């Protein structure tokens, strides 16, 4: 009969569906990338080895080709810089014993140490330093860090001069990043492409092997200029699924986990065998407007939204309270961040009034493309309170980078910035200066002469107080014009076996395994 036939087809259909799902094709939020490898079993964590879990694979081990924080974290085990960042964040001599900065701030002369060896046994020379600096300057990957640098010259066998294009406030911070790591000229020139897979540096850890997608293995460098590290074997394991990584940490397969998932935070803190470290991040989330074209070229509309935003609720909703509201466009842990600064405060009545003044007394509908669903959903709800209907368009990273970030085909979006170096210039200059509108820099498309002036002043001044005052003005202008709305900073976390000492969370996710030791 008819019914029986239909029923049969329905059964077959269901079975086929069953077969399909059984094959493992459902993909509920499967995370990032590659896989990793389990060296030792749970109990026998050797007392001089560290297994370090990271959630993505560095694209290269060539320091002048790295451009994301995770890659820097791995590079900093292999390479050193002329100026070194100490555990407390201060800058101290590294491969350079001392340095002098010229009156106009455009030249720095470094006196080099003469006892530094590379992993291949060669002594570090001034030629290597000059070569590395120039290589960093010409690399397309490092422009944010080396944009102010012009060229490096050798003065004599222990002195090197770095010439800048303009006096640059955060220059020493930049020199302390691994993008300007010192590499051996001979080794790189012998095989430039291969260097990325087989690096040689002066750092505390010597490269041993790299199993793609699995792990990167290092051993301590015996002739390290500061003395050999306590940790003799270091393995970075690539575990992209955050839950698996947390489990691996809990059962001892890894000893440290960088950037654990929000959801695992409470469990990891409660676990007696682990210690959880965190600090406020140097990155922040914000609402960005296209100030030039479209709906939000209307300043009153931007301002209305700035009063509709409730930062506390956003932190609760998006991060379950694990973050800090941010009032200025310069994150708290960054030089230049104005103290006790207040942005426009949450005030629904004022928001509604401004909305009416802007010409939308009955509200309006807007489209919000974004990569970050959680904060945008909370924002959507907050906007609904003043009559704005926000349609969220969740995008994939590549698409967002293309359409919103580079081509600026948007009106409003929720995005995030992080600075590679904890200085305000890195997170403001290219972002808000009129000379850099569009093209993946100034995506708010603003060009405010007074703002440009302050940014230029802050960038080139050599006076700490002058720079701070300028960045205060910058924050004020960005707030008064509602160019963008800073929302909050998340926390950078790192969880480790409680017997591993020396672990620290860092605002820019720097990792210094040299400081680690087993109790």
């Amino acid at each position, binding site marked *: 009969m008819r019914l029986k036939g239909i029923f049969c087809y329905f059964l077959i259909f269901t*079975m086929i569906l*069953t*077969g*399909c*799902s*059984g*094959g*493992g*094709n*459902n*993909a*509920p939020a*499967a*995370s*990032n*990338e*590659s*896989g*990793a*490898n*389990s*060296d030792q*079993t*749970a109990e026998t964590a050797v007392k001089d080895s560290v297994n370090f879990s990271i959630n993505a*694979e560095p*694209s290269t081990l060539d320091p002048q080709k790295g*451009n*994301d924080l995770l890659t820097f974290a791995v590079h900093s085990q292999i390479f050193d810089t002329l100026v070194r960042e100490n555990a407390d964040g201060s800058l101290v001599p590294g491969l350079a014993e001392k340095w002098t900065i010229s009156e106009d701030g455009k030249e720095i002369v470094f006196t080099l140490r003469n006892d530094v060896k590379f992993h291949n046994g060669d002594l570090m020379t001034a030629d290597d330093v000059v070569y590395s600096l120039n290589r960093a300057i010409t690399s*397309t*990957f490092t*422009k*944010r860090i080396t944009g102010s640098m012009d060229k490096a010259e050798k003065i004599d066998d222990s002195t090197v001069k770095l010439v800048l294009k303009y006096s640059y406030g955060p220059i020493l911070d930049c020199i302390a990043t691994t993008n300007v790591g010192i590499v051996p000229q001979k080794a790189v020139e012998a095989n430039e492409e291969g260097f*990325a897979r087989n690096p040689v540096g002066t750092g505390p850890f010597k490269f041993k092997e790299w*199993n*793609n*997608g*699995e792990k990167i293995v290092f051993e301590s460098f015996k002739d390290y200029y500061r003395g050999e590290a306590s940790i003799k074997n270091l393995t970075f*394991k*690539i*575990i*992209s*699924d955050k*839950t*698996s*990584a947390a*489990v*691996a940490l809990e*059962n001892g*397969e890894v000893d440290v986990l960088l950037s654990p998932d929000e959801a695992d935070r409470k469990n990891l803190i409660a676990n007696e065998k682990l210690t959880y470290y965190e600090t406020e991040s140097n990155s922040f989330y914000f609402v960005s407007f296209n100030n030039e074209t479209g709906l939000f070229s209307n300043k009153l509309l931007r301002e209305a939204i700035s009063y509709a935003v409730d930062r506390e609720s956003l932190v609760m909703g998006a991060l379950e309270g694990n973050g800090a509201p941010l009032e200025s466009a310069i994150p708290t842990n960054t030089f230049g961040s104005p103290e006790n600064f207040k942005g426009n405060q949450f005030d629904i009545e004022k928001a509604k009034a401004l909305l009416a003044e802007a010409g939308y007394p009955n509200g309006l509908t807007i489209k919000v493309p974004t990569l970050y669903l959680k904060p945008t959903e909370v924002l959507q709800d907050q906007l609904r309170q003043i009559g704005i209907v926000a349609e969220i368009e969740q995008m*994939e*990273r*590549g*698409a967002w*980078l*293309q*359409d919103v970030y*580079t081509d600026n085909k948007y009106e409003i979006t929720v995005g995030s910035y992080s600075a590679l170096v904890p200085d305000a210039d890195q997170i403001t200059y290219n972002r808000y200066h009129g000379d850099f509108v*569009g*093209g*993946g820099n100034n995506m708010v498309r603003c060009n405010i002469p007074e703002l440009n002036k302050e940014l230029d002043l802050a960038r080139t001044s050599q006076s700490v107080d002058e720079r701070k005052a300028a960045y205060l003005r910058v924050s004020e202008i960005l707030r008064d014009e509602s160019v963008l709305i800073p929302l909050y900073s998340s926390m950078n976390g790192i969880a480790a076996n409680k017997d591993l000492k020396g672990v620290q969370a860092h605002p820019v996710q720097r990792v210094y395994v040299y400081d680690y030791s087993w109790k």
Partner: protein
Amino acid sequence: MLRFIFKRLLMIIPVIIGISFIIFSIMALTPGDPARLILGESASQTDVELLREEMGLNDNFLIRYVDYMKDVVRGDFGLSYRNRIPVYDEVFARFPNTLVLAFWGITLSVLIGVPIGIISAVKQYSILDTMSLGAALVLASIPAFWLGLMLILLFSLKLNLLPSTGVETWKNFVLPSITLAAGTMATLIRMTRSTMLEVIRQDYIRTAKAKGAGERRLIFKHALRNALLPVITIIGINFGFQLGGAMIIETVFAMPGLGTLMITSVRMKDTPMVMASVLFVAVAVSLVNLLVDLLYSFIDPRIKSQYSKS
């Protein structure tokens, strides 16, 4: 017979061409700039443009496709956009992990699923039957992701018997294989059961029984052989799925295989890597399908003669 095999092998070629064209178009025509993804957010647009020129991304996509295929035919799959390593080496290095995983996944599901299905059919409506049907339902409904994590929590964390990540020893493959086998097992239980039920009722079985054949001989020699055809089809199809799509298992268990490679490469718009991985899997699946068809001929002599005729 050999002609049949040869013809089937030839047919793989248009399949490969079709798949490569589709994947290449998708990668080329969807938004997302590989150069920007390589250089990162802080790079200037001018640098990104320079890199695009260098990588040849600004050429017409058809020209790029033809160039790519010309290289492929010579065996050159190109360099990864992301980290400049030869694509072929990378894919070839990772393939064994996925292959072993898929192999054990299928083997486990067959070794457990088929016998349970047979028993279910032979003892239809008994307790065993109901239980196996229930188990099949549960296994089919559980998402692989969840099952994998639960197994890790139990065997790795609580009992500390097996490792949770990596591919070092055979121990690393136990939990992932079980997770992968679960879904296919469910299908096989039900499929084997239903085909066996159908076959058992056939006249020739009754005849054999009347002629005095024992239970064992009846089931294995007469019934199973006939029931096996649809079951083998399912095994073949699922092996293909598992080869290409053990992505979730690989992610949960942090195993460096083709699945995770594909995910990373698609995210970074690393076209050469995506193309090579997909083509690799496509060829593997085609070969497995061919094997399945050949297996038919072993099991069913009628089909064997059909192949020989064509």
